[in-house]
């Protein structure tokens, strides 16, 4: 097992950890916004770490380029998706779990 | 033990098929029926793909001469079948939208009731 493999497996392992914690957060967090936060963890840091780990496994050929493309694409789209979700929820009148419903409406419920 | 190793894949796929089939025939909501239909079909696709697998083989795209390839024919059949599936789904969902507009409901027992009343 050479040096690159060790680094790569470390990165993959770290990526798995973040993906897992994102999944746990998705279930355990109290409201919609915090859950979006947890979910976006899997798309961002976990994906970056995993793809970085995979990059080290390639021999710098077409696959490397493909992986980099995937990474760039993910980095553009996944924060946007989280942003759009959170913004729509806020516009739809969803409140943070710390806030109280006011007379104008708004709700703490999420499903 | 050998029996299990040989067939575990097919058994689980049969279970999945039957789950989908159950959803189709038991669901009262039409959207759920369509979901069930899709699960049923997707599981049948898995049966086809399972039989095309060759242990130790790779995807049927030529790499070099001495590679063991999985069987491409089931893949081709299932590509066709997936497309057929989505076509059916699209028509089925359109029908559901029309039914909702005509009857105001997509629950089978409710519009059946209305059909009988006419």
């Amino acid at each position, binding site marked *: 097992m050479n040096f690159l493999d060790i680094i790569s497996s470390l990165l993959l392992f770290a990526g798995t950890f973040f993906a897992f914690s994102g999944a746990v957060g998705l279930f355990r967090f109290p409201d919609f916004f915090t859950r979006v936060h947890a979910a976006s963890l899997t798309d961002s840091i976990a994906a970056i770490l995993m793809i970085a780990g995979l990059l080290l496994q390639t021999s710098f050929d077409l696959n490397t380029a493909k992986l980099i493309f995937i990474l760039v694409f993910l980095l553009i789209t996944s924060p946007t998706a989280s942003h759009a979700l959170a913004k729509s929820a806020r516009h739809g009148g969803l409140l943070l779990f710390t806030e109280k419903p006011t007379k104008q409406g708004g709700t703490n419920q999420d499903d | 033990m050998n029996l299990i190793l040989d067939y575990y894949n097919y058994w689980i796929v049969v279970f999945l098929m039957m789950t989908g089939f*159950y959803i189709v*025939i038991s669901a009262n909501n039409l959207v759920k029926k369509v979901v069930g239909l899709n699960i049923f079909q997707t599981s049948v696709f898995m049966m086809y793909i399972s039989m095309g697998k060759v242990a130790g083989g790779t*995807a049927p795209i030529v790499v070099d001469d001495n590679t063991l390839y999985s069987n491409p024919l089931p893949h081709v059949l299932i590509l066709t079948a*997936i497309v057929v599936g989505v076509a059916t789904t699209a028509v089925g969902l359109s029908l559901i939208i029309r039914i909702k507009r005509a009857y105001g409901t*997509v629950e089978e027992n409710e519009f059946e009731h209305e059909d009988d009343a006419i």
Partner: protein
Amino acid sequence: MIEWIDLILLGMLALTALRVIFLKDLFAVVMLFGIYSFLSALVFIVLDAVDVAFTEAAVGAGISTVLMLGTLALTGRTEKENTHSKLLPILVVSVTGAALIYGTLDMPPFGNPDNPIHQHVAPRYIEDSPKEVGLPNMVTSVLASYRGFDTLGETVVVFSAAIGVLALLGIRREEDNNTPESGFKEHRVLQIVAKITIPLVILFALYVQFHGDFGPGGGFQAGVIAAAAFILYGLVFGLAKSMAVISPMFLRYMAASGVLLYAGVGLFSMMQGGNFLDYNLLASDPVAGQHYGILIIELGVGITVFAVMLTIFYAFASQTERSNIQ
């Protein structure tokens, strides 16, 4: 190792499918179906069916799920209490399942290279298709050439779906400004990102279209991806703008011309004195002929699939807008 991944994925599939039975929230049911589809795409990859996995991910998890969500927006998201007796369905399913399990007992073992399907018919595809058809991707060779008639049928199925959806829903083009703008009107970030990604997605679709001979991909997947790019455009900028880019009428012509292109290749080969869809006669050299033939018919498939998917999206989306007005 592969077996274990396979087993874990199948287990997750089983859990997902079971959950669908008991959930009453249809939104969750549809999302679970999307997950189911994705998981089955992974199973397909494990079983070496990369083309199928690609298609399943694009169609099952992509288009089907979007269509189902669109339907839910119109029909409501909770299922009512089911009063039907569960006894008959359980009985039917048990009998069917038992029959299938009985059938598995004489099946050829999973993955064994000596199985009849690996011994008969398929060896020719694996051994001779790179020479006869000249493509590295055997799936494309079989799909487009040996079983090209199936694929023509498949394209026609897609076309029929468009006819069905048009007959059932039709596409309403709201020229006036009464149409409510898409819900994403205020989403500046989304609009900018969409502007960046849409060209990339279309580029990728073209890559998939023309690279299908060498790797996974082909007309069908490319059509779906290209349609996805326009669907994204429609979602973010509103249906009216999207229809201004590609009008529903133009899509009808596109859908028809894709099928005609495909069938035209067949007619042309008939005129050259061969059988229907015999690509060998398209050029002086049979292998080159195969190459042209596959290139053109894949293009036909791509055009039809793109047009049909977008037509279906238009039909569904214009229904949603219509019900919003009411």
